[in-house]
C-alpha cells in the first residue's frame, strides 16, 4: 500500500468506504509521521488517545454504512480552536493550562461528521503574525527548502503549523483561520490549497477571537477538491454566532466541474506592486493565460482603494484585538502573575499581561488601544471603517460589472527565511498581507491555489477572490486553475 499519510481527503474517503483502509490505519500512519517530524514543530499538543478513539468509532460508523465524507479522516486543528478538554492556548503563554469545557462549533461539526483529531497545530500567538515566529511554542518550520540550502524557512502565518502539517503529510487536512491572510499566505508558502470562506459562512463560536469582524475559519488541504469537502463539513449556520449567516450550504464538491467557459475573471491593476519579484508577475500572467485557455473571459479591472487596505486593516484588526484580548487579565483562567506584598489589581493586570503576551501581541494591543482612544478615534478607527466601506464597494462594483472572480498573486514573495525579518520594521512583515487583507475587509471568499515553483524551488500561490456566498463557484474556478497549473510537487523530506 502507498504511504497512507500522502492520501488526499477524497481518496481516503473512497478507500475507507471501499474498505481498503481503516481510519485506525490512517490515523496511526499520521501519528507515526508526526512523531518523526518534531523538527517541523507543527503540532504543539498531540492527542493520540483521542485520535485513536475517534478513529475506532469512525471505523464502526463506516462499517455500519453511516459514513459522512469526513468520517475517519485524520486532521490537525489549529490551536486557535477551543477543543474540549484539550489545551487550547492560541499559542500564547497567557492561556497556559487552559483546557476549555466546550468544543468550538467548527470542530464539533467536523467530529460529528467523523473526523479524527491528531492534535493542535502551531500558529502565531493569537493569530497575529505572518511567519509563525510569534508562537509561544517557538516557530513552526516550512517543510520546503531553497534547493540544497538547508536554512529554515517560514511556513507563513498565522496558520503556519496547519500549513506545515498538510504540506509534510502530517495529517490529511487541517483547520486554519484567516483574519488578514492567515490561511491563504501559509498555503501559498507551502504549496497547498487554503480557502477563507465568506465572512459568516463558518461559525466563530469557540474560536479564540483576534478581530471579530474579520476572523473566519477555513480548511487547508492538499488540493481544491479536499478544500470543498472539508469546507462543506466546517460551515453552516450557527445560532450561537450572531454574525453567522442563515443560508443553505450547497454541495461544493458537486460543483467542481472544471468548466469555467463564459466566466469573467478580473485582473485588478492595483495589485501590481512596485518592487514585486518578477517571478510573481510571471506566475500571475501565467494564471491569467491558463484561465483564458480554460475558456474564461479575462478583463482588466480597477479596485481603486486597494492601497488604503493595508493601513485600514492594521487599524481595524488591532482595535478589535485590543478589546477582544482584554479578557486575558489573570483573574479567571490562564496565566496569572505572582504579586508582591502590597500590590493590587492594576499590578495583577500589568504583570500578567506583560508576562503572558509576546511582543507582537503587545504591540497590536497598544496600537488598537491608541486608535480607539478619545481624540484619535475619528482620525484612525472611523477613517479606517470608511476605507473599509469603500473597499467593499470597489468589489461590489466589479461584481456588478459581471466579474465572477478576481485573480491576484497570493503573496508578494515566496516563503522567506525564519529569523530574516527579525530586525525589520514590523510593517515589512505586515506587507505579506497586502494581497489578502482586502478580501477580509470586504468579507469575501478567497482561495489560494499552488501554481508553480520559483527559481529556488519554492512554491508560489495564486489567489482567486469570489462573490459573497459563492464559494462553490469560486472553488470550481480554483479547480480549473489547479488542473491547468498541474502543480504536484512535494517538499523533499529532510526532517
Amino acid at each position, binding site marked *: 500500500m502507498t504511504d497512507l499519510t500522502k492520501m488526499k481527503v477524497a481518496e481516503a474517503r473512497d478507500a475507507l468506504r471501499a474498505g481498503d483502509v481503516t481510519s485506525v490505519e490512517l490515523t496511526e500512519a499520521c501519528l507515526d509521521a508526526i512523531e518523526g517530524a518534531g523538527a517541523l514543530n507543527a503540532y504543539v499538543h498531540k492527542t493520540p488517545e483521542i485520535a485513536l478513539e475517534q478513529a475506532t468509532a469512525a471505523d464502526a460508523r463506516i462499517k455500519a454504512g453511516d459514513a459522512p465524507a469526513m468520517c475517519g479522516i485524520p486532521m490537525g486543528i489549529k490551536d486557535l*480552536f*477551543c477543543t474540549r478538554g484539550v489545551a*487550547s492556548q*492560541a499559542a500564547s503563554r497567557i*492561556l497556559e493550562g*487552559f483546557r*476549555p*469545557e*466546550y468544543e*468550538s462549533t467548527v470542530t464539533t461539526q467536523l467530529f460529528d461528521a467523523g473526523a479524527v483529531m491528531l492534535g493542535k497545530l502551531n500558529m502565531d500567538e493569537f493569530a497575529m503574525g505572518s511567519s509563525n515566529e510569534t508562537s509561544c511554542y517557538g516557530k513552526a518550520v516550512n517543510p520546503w527548502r531553497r534547493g540544497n540550502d538547508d536554512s529554515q524557512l517560514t511556513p507563513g502565518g498565522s496558520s503556519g503549523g496547519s500549513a506545515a502539517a498538510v504540506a509534510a503529510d502530517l495529517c490529511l487536512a487541517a483547520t486554519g483561520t484567516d483574519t488578514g491572510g492567515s490561511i491563504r499566505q501559509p498555503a501559498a508558502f507551502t504549496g497547498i490549497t487554503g480557502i477563507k470562506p465568506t465572512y459568516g459562512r463558518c461559525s*466563530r*463560536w*469557540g*474560536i*479564540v*477571537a483576534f*478581530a*471579530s*469582524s474579520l476572523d473566519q475559519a477555513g480548511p487547508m488541504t492538499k488540493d481544491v477538491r479536499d478544500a470543498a469537502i472539508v469546507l462543506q463539513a466546517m460551515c453552516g449556520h450557527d*445560532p*450561537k*454566532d*450572531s*454574525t453567522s449567516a442563515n443560508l443553505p450550504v450547497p454541495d461544493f464538491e458537486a460543483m467542481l466541474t472544471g468548466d469555467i467557459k463564459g466566466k469573467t475573471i478580473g485582473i485588478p491593476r492595483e495589485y501590481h506592486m512596485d518592487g514585486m519579484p518578477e517571478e510573481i508577475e510571471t506566475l500571475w500572467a501565467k494564471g491569467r493565460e491558463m484561465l483564458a485557455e480554460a475558456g474564461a473571459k479575462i478583463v482588466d479591472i480597477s479596485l481603486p482603494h486597494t492601497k488604503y487596505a493595508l493601513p485600514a486593516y492594521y487599524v481595524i484588526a488591532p*482595535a*478589535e484585538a*485590543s*478589546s477582544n*484580548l*482584554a*479578557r486575558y*487579565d489573570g*483573574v*479567571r*483562567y490562564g496565566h496569572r502573575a505572582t504579586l508582591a506584598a502590597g500590590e493590587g*489589581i*492594576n499590578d495583577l*493586570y500589568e504583570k500578567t499581561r506583560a508576562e503572558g503576551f509576546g511582543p507582537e501581541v503587545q504591540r497590536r494591543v497598544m496600537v488598537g*488601544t491608541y486608535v*480607539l*482612544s*478619545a481624540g484619535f*478615534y475619528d482620525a484612525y*478607527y472611523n477613517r479606517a471603517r470608511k476605507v473599509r466601506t469603500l473597499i467593499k464597494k470597489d468589489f461590489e462594483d466589479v461584481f456588478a460589472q459581471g466579474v465572477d472572480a478576481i485573480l491576484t498573486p497570493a503573496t508578494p514573495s515566496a516563503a522567506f527565511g525564519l529569523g530574516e525579518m527579525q530586525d525589520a520594521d514590523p510593517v515589512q512583515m505586515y506587507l505579506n498581507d497586502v494581497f489578502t487583507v482586502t478580501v477580509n475587509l470586504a468579507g469575501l471568499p478567497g482561495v489560494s491555489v499552488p501554481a508553480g515553483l520559483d527559481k529556488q524551488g519554492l512554491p508560489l500561490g495564486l489567489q482567486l477572490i469570489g462573490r459573497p456566498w459563492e464559494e462553490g463557484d469560486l472553488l470550481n474556478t480554483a479547480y480549473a486553475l489547479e488542473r491547468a497549473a498541474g502543480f504536484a510537487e512535494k517538499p523533499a523530506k529532510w526532517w
Partner: protein
Amino acid sequence: MLDLSFEPPKPKVIAGAKYDWELVIGMEVHAQVASEAKLFSGASTKFGAEPNSNVAFVDAAMPGMLPVINEYCVEQAVRTGLGLKAEINLKSAFDRKNYFYPDLPQGYQISQLYHPIVGEGEVIVDMEPGIARLVRIERIHIEQDAGKSIHDMDPNMSFVDLNRTGVALMEIVSRPDIRGPEEAAAYVSKLRQILRYLGTCDGNMQNGNLRADVNVSVCRPGQYEKYQETQDFSHLGTRCEIKNMNSMRFIQQAIDYEAKRQIAILEAGGSIDQETRLYDPDKGETRSMRSKEEAHDYRYFPDPDLLPLEIEQAWVDDIAASLPELPDEKKARFVKDFGLSEYDASVLTAEVANAAFFEKVAAEAGDGKLAANWVINELFGRLKKEGHDITESPVSPAQLAGIVRLIKSDAISGKIAKDLFEIVYTEGGDPEQIVDERGMKQVTDTGAIETAVDEIIAANPAQVEKAKQNPKLAGWFVGQVMKATGGKANPKAVNEIVAKKLAE
C-alpha cells in the same frame, strides 16, 4: 386619551450666603430588565443564588464565547419606551465600553452609545394634585450589568461574584429638567411606578434592580430659562455626577448636600470641577470618586460580535397594542369615572395591584367614591399597620364590597361598619351574614328610636331645659340614644327625632 391638566412646580431655591440659587438635575436610571435570562446568555437572573452559580461561559468571558441577544429583553426595552411615550428606533446597535475591572470579565461592557433602541420620551412627575413636572427622556439603551466585587471577606484577597454579570439593564437618561431634590425622588418614584405597571422592571431598589446616577449643578435664577430657550448648556453650571444611588431618601439627601457644597464653592469665588462623586449616607456627604482627568477613556466602538439590532414596526405595534393602562391614564379615568379627588386617585393608582383591587371593590359595590374611602382609609391603613401589601390582604375585594354595600344601603352605620371590617379582617366571613348573625343591622325603625328618645328625655329633664336654650347640646341626647341602642340606631334618624322632640 384623557389627561389631567397640571401646572409645573416652582423650582427649589436655595439661599446661599450671598445669592439665591436654583438646582438643575438630570438623571440616569439603571433599571434591571425583568427577564428570566441574561441579555446575551441563557443564565438565570434569579437574585440571591449561590455566588457564581448563574454564569454561562460567555458571562465569564471564556475564550471564543459569543453573545447572542435575548429577544425578550429587547421586547421589554421597547415596551418601556412605549410606556414612556418615546420613539422606538427600529435600527439600533451595540457598542463596547472598554475598561478593566475584575467584575467585568470581558474587559468591556456591551452597551448602546451611538444608536440606542429608544429615543425621546417623557415622564409626568406628579408633585401634588394639579402640580407636576414634565421631565423629558433623552434616550433609553440596553446594556449589560457588571458582577460584584467583594472586598471585605478576606484581608488579602478580593472575591468576585459573576451572577449579576450580563444581566440586562435599561439605562433611562433624562434631560436636565428636574429642579429640586423632591422632584428627583418623585421622578424616580414615577419611573418606578410606570416600569412596574409595564412589568419591565420590578423596581426593587434594595436589591439594586433600580438605581440612579444623579447629575447636579446649580445656577442663578434666570439662567435655566435661558438654557430652555436655547438648549445651550453653557447657561448652566458645571455638573457633578453622584453615582449609584438606590434609595429615594439618599437621593434627596445627596442632592441637598451636593447643591450646598457647590454653592459654597461658587460663592467663595471658586469653580466646580466636573467629576464623579459618591454619596456616603453615614456621613451624609458626597465625596470625589474620580475627577474629569482621571475619567476612564472607554474607547467605545461598535461591537463586532453583534449585528445591528433591527426590529419591525409590526412587532412594535403588537407590543404597543398589549400595553396595559398606565398610571396617568388610570388616574385620570378614576377621577372622571368614579368622581374621585386627584389625590385619592393618585393613592389608588400608585401600584397597579392596588388599583385593580379598588376597581373590583368599586364595581361590586356600585359606588366608587365610597369604595375609594374604604380601600384607602380602612384597608390600606390596616395593611400598613401590619406591614402587608395588597397581595397579602386578608380581606378580598368581594368582602370589602359587601361592607360598602351594607353602608350604602343604610343597613349599617359607619361606626358599625368599622367593627364589621375588623371582624372580616381578623376572622373572615361574608359581611352580610356576619351582620345578620350578630345583629349588627342598623335600627331604622323610627318607632323604636322614638321610644328610646322619649325614655332619655323623660329621665333627664334638667338636660332637656338646657338643650332647649342651647340647641348644640342636642348631641348629648344623640350620644345617649346611640349608647342605649348599642350603636345600631341610624344616626341620621336619631338626629332628626332628637331635634324634633326637643323642639316640642
